């Protein structure tokens, strides 16, 4: 994995950090689905998200890493915990976590895995051999260009981005209507 070409700083012990982060992500990901205590699961999920943020950093995508931390680890997971804390942990811990449709779940997981593997095998030549050295300082700008467009032109994802924000607005309104009886 030590194939990253770097212009400025030379990262230290890159393979170590990669395996460390990947291992942490996998282990904590497994903990998420095996812990019976929902709060423990949520905390494990936070570790997973942070590890993934670290991996983004290693891919020279600091902006995505930062957003990952802010939005997922900092925002969404806090709300998750907020809700989970109010759930009766004692009761939910006693419930069987793996219910009867687990074979279906296993099958779905296997299918997904085989999809990934086949995509990786078949499209091997689509993946770059080595990561292109990104200009770290322009990373944020590039994302902006992708999302909002540049110099008067729409970026490739502008439409999707706007649609997504509209969707979120609808979700917000729905949440307000659901929780408030009279507005």
């Amino acid at each position, binding site marked *: 994995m030590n194939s990253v070409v770097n212009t400025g700083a030379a990262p230290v012990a890159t393979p170590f950090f990669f395996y460390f982060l990947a291992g942490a992500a996998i282990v904590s990901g497994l903990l998420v689905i095996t812990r019976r205590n929902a709060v423990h699961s949520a905390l494990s999920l936070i570790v997973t998200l942070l590890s993934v943020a670290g991996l983004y950093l290693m891919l020279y995508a600091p902006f995505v890493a930062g957003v990952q931390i802010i939005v997922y680890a900092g925002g969404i997971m806090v709300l998750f915990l907020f809700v989970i804390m*109010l759930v*009766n942990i004692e009761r939910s811990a006693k419930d069987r976590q793996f219910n009867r449709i687990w074979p279906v779940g296993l099958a779905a997981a296997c299918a997904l895995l085989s999809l990934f593997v086949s995509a990786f095998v078949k499209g091997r030549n689509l993946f770059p051999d080595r990561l292109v050295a990104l200009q770290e300082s322009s990373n944020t700008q590039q994302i902006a260009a992708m999302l909002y467009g540049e110099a008067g032109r729409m970026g490739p994802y502008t439409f999707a981005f706007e649609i997504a924000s509209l969707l979120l607005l609808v979700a917000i309104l729905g949440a307000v209507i659901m*929780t408030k*009886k009279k507005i």
Partner: protein
Amino acid sequence: MKDSMDELSNGAVSHLDLETPEKPYLDANELIINMGPQHPATHGVLRVILKLDGEKVLGTECVIGYLHRGVEKIAENRTYTMFNPYVDRMDYVAAVSNGLGYCEAVEKLLNVEAPPRAQYIRVVLTELNRIASHQLWLGTHALDIGAMTPLFYTFRDREEILKIFERYCGARLTTHAFRIGGCQYETYAGFEKDVKNFLAFFPPKIDEYEALLTSNRIWLERTKNVGVISGKDCIALGVTGPVLRASGVKWDLRKAQPYAAYSKFDFEIPVGENGDTYDRYMVRMIEMRQSLRIIEQAVNGIPEGPIMGKVPKVIKPPVGEIYHSIEAPKGELGYFIVSDGSTQPYRVRVRPPSFVNLQALDIMVRGMLVADVVAVIGTLDIVLGEVDR
């Protein structure tokens, strides 16, 4: 607890407007929180069991009695004179008022009256004590709402009053200032000067408290429309004192049924409008100023003469019973004394204002937030020594 509250909200107290907070839309578990008896804001050993929906209070139940010392039982085993110091230990921040109520009640039973000089001294000391009590209330109330600093200011100024007490009778808190039939001691040399110094010293200090709180936005938000109680509810629940007056009922025993020398002084009764925590705050602040007015008139007019009335050495009231009440800083403090003709009271019943006022806590905090419970406990100005006796 639930039963009692249902009873309260149905039929039993139909004329009391007990609004049950609307049921939560999402299914949420009710949270039972035990506030006290060890809690920084319950002013002693009050225990309040709160039923919460999130932060909203659905109902409360007060558990009291942690400070119960059986004062009424003690009275039956002491002579009238021996019992006098015990009353100081009930509302220990207004010991002088307690003593005044008890002494006057026994005097009434004996059918004697304290001489004018004693009456005036009593008024001066009792009003000083009212200010001290209100100062303590203000400091702790502000602390409950999160303002730390007023506590220290009020304690600094309360010190001046306690110094006068100390010079007068040697005690600062449990003063035992009065005797049945008059005063315990003749005023010390310079008593009047000390009191007059205090009269000059204190008004700027009230302004100082008010500068910190009265128009403070957060203070206003925390106290306006918090713990509202109507005058009607106050009367139905027997709530007296500044709480009653803040709800718009202009009733003060010092005016309604004057005792001691109060009929000779000119003062006003402050009245609130909304019956919320802010009005109670304002009423007490004005009361402090009015107390200063009374003290000024009293200390300038202390007549010469004896300080003790014609009371026998052994106090042995004739058979009979009497109820006498005074306006203590917290409300109507009454003594119901039954005499069997012996030297010991057959029965002494204390009608404690804090005890009765505390009953209003429940309807004042229903539907409000946890933080308001603390504010309302503070604004009721309870002293657990008096609630539990």
